[in-house]
């Protein structure tokens, strides 16, 4: 900690460094030197980023567990992701990280014009990422690649009605889950669909001896209306593994949470850009630029893990 030496040198006992406070208007009252304030901010940001790593870390653990349980789901469902768009987004984020790093350097070396330019480019990258992500999401929604039971349903109410009348209900492997206990007799279980809106209306499940739904329960539920629908190509695919919906659940959760971080990034980088255009940052004081830079690199880093884990598995 370099600050402690300078701290002790510049202020002996009994001094609170009022000189520094007069000289540096940005210096908060409870810090003695600008360096102490900078180092505190930096440590605080690193510690906060540690919490971010744990935040995403739990999701990566969940990803690992789900993939370990159903590896075929992941290798199958990844085909529905657009590797080109994902790849472009990866490049966009890496480039925005580069401009952010150049921007921090520009602030340190007091090049205010370059700082504003770099922040603007970073902001453009962040917004560009979100725009591409928006097209990816809407495309998947269009194909009905959603989470949970919606994954197995036609897109609209009208479609659902049409599908009920027209389509020939096929033996649907989609919702099948294997019974872990062969003696239970039930090899597959299908879900009633659509689910009741009011969850309290769901009857308590009957439990078999092995804790799984019994044969009676399987026969009791309605035949599913997961009919073939042109808007959901996966619904036509008889080779789709069971539980494929979980890939998309975790895909939306992890990329969505990352997307929220990018949105926050847009906000703080925009705030930096405004400050930079007003000349607030200089080689004396660039703490916010440095800290936001750290944040932005971590957001990029999370994506660097997300991209191969979702898009590049086959």
């Amino acid at each position, binding site marked *: 900690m370099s600050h402690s030496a300078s701290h002790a040198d510049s202020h002996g006992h009994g001094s609170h460094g009022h000189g520094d406070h007069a000289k540096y208007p940005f210096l908060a009252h*409870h810090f003695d030197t600008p360096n102490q304030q900078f180092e505190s901010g930096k440590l605080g940001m690193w510690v906060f980023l540690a919490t971010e790593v744990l*935040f995403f870390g739990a999701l990566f653990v*969940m990803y690992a567990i789900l993939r370990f*349980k159903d590896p075929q789901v992941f290798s199958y469902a990844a085909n529905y992701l657009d590797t080109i768009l994902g790849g472009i987004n990866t490049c966009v984020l890496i480039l925005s990280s580069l401009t952010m790093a150049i921007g921090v350097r520009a602030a340190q070396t007091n090049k205010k014009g370059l700082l504003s330019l770099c922040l603007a480019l970073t902001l453009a990258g962040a917004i560009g990422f979100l725009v591409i992500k928006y097209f990816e999401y809407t495309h998947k929604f269009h194909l009905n690649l959603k989470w949970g039971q919606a994954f197995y349903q036609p897109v609209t109410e009208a479609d659902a009605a049409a599908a009920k009348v027209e389509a020939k209900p096929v033996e649907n492997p989609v919702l099948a889950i294997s019974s872990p206990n062969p003696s239970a007799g039930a090899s597959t279980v299908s*879900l009633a669909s659509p689910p009741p809106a009011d969850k309290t209306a769901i009857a308590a499940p009957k439990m078999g001896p092995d804790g799984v739904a019994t044969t009676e329960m399987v026969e009791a539920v309605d035949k599913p209306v997961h009919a073939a629908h042109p808007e959901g190509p996966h619904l036509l695919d008889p080779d789709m593994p069971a539980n494929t919906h979980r890939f998309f659940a975790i895909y939306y*959760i992890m990329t969505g949470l990352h997307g929220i971080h990018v949105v926050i990034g847009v906000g703080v980088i925009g705030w930096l850009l405004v400050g930079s255009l007003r000349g607030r940052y200089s080689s004396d004081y660039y703490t916010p630029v440095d800290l936001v830079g750290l944040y932005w690199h971590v957001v990029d880093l999370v994506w660097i893990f997300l991209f191969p884990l979702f898009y590049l598995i086959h």
Partner: protein
Amino acid sequence: MTTLDTRPIHDEVPGNYLTFRRGILSWIFTLDHKRIGVMYLVAVLVSFFVGGVMALLVRTKLLFPGEVEWMTFDQYNKAFTLHGAIMVFLVIIPSIPAALGNFVLPIMLGAKDVAFPRLNLFSFYLWIMGAICAVYSLIAGGFDTGWTFYTPYSSQFSTGGTIPVLVGVFILGFSSIFTGVNFVVTIHKLRPPGMTWFRMPLFLWALYATALIQILATPVLGITVALLVVERAFNIGIFDPVMGGDPVLFQHFFWFYSHPAVYIMILPGMGIISEIIAVHSHRHIFGFRFIAFSSIAIAIFSFLVWGHHMFTSGQSPLMNVLFSAITFSVAIPSAVKVFNWLATLYKGSISLNTAMWYGLSFIFLFTIGGLTGIPLAVLSTDIHLHDTYFVVAHFHYVMMGSALIAMIGGLHHWWPKMTGRMFNETWGKIGCALVFVGFNMTFFTQFMLGSQGMPRRYYMYKPEFQIYHHISTGGSYIMGLGFVITAIYLLHSLFAGRKAPANPWGGASLEWQCTSPPPHDNFSVTPRVGDCYDFSAVSWDEKQQGYVVDVEAHVAAAQSGKGH
């Protein structure tokens, strides 16, 4: 709070933190760690009152088995769930770090404030928002999942208030994280010259270890409850077995936070006890480094034992054995602390003040709470004791009998510093005795109930258990009376208490060297740091009716290595 602010209680000290600025806005927008600590304290104590009323309702209902006229089964389930959730998330977790820690940490350290005062205030308002969510969940239908929110009950069934309370827990988690970030940075970067790591009071070591857990464990809770909200709202099939999900995965995620959270609760309490025992025995703490490092050791171990909550949930036998073994090892740093406190007491000149009564209560209750953890860590006995009143009694001895008793003890220890007033010692001891006796009546009987097979959370019980339930409920009333008396004499002291000297107990750490209440900036000059457990330079001053520290001699003794 405004009445506190506008009343000039310390005429001879022109600028203490209470009179520095006036009016309610000066509290709402304050960045002063002392005022934020006081606001946290008020908020936590209000929550403690609500949670306590819930506990008394539950205990009163349990006087009789089965449904009673004034409380349905459903209301009973909601009442004990609310009691647990309030006490854990709104009271015990923020009580010592956010309320007492906020007030004391920068002063003990010799700093003017925490590193990020705005973040500190933001964290307080996050707490308020979380509390509002919890209140809203009651309006929205309440929740009856138990405070653990186990799936699939919480994700598919339960009642309408589940999602609001989960959102509240998520927000409260961030409040806790930001407090932790603040404390870690403050301790690393705001120490004045001379305040080395091994000159730091043990309370700060404990808060540092706590902050590490808050930072590293709480995000996992945040993402877990977020996933549960998504699961409940959209049925995505992560925890729902019908959709191919795994409910035990939720238990792993939940306990990965919530076991370390137990140490978020107890570690700061242990820190307070280290202060109370040393100061009120007027004797140098025994084994400073052992106590300091045992806090860090407990923080590390806390991340490795979560599986002991799931011995009956179908973990692999190998996992069970490993978690059981690591759980035993937590006993080592805990026992190191207890033995060091006892060694500190030995041949000390003990002042049996109210704070010391609480300190001794802690040692007694924590020992029982810790030792009854061993049968729960043993795989074979845990099968019998799992989800019985034995577990309830065990964690109440640790969370309430230890963490909360330490918090109340710390409140008495620093009350003169925070308010500038002395409370009535006689009533203090009566209150402490009632709480101690009532507590043991309430929860020791529950060990007996649990070992005979009474399951936790049940509204129905066998007739032969009724006598235990009667004793337990009677004890809870005695305890409640003790807390009411405590509240009365503490509030009374604000108006009629004797003015507090700067150093009423004879402490040598830095907070006793500034006035009571402290000035806005804590120290007008950078304080000089000695050994905070060296009481050789502390003497009684008749004129001030308090102790004074000869700072020159104190610092000189530390520099020459005396007092160690």
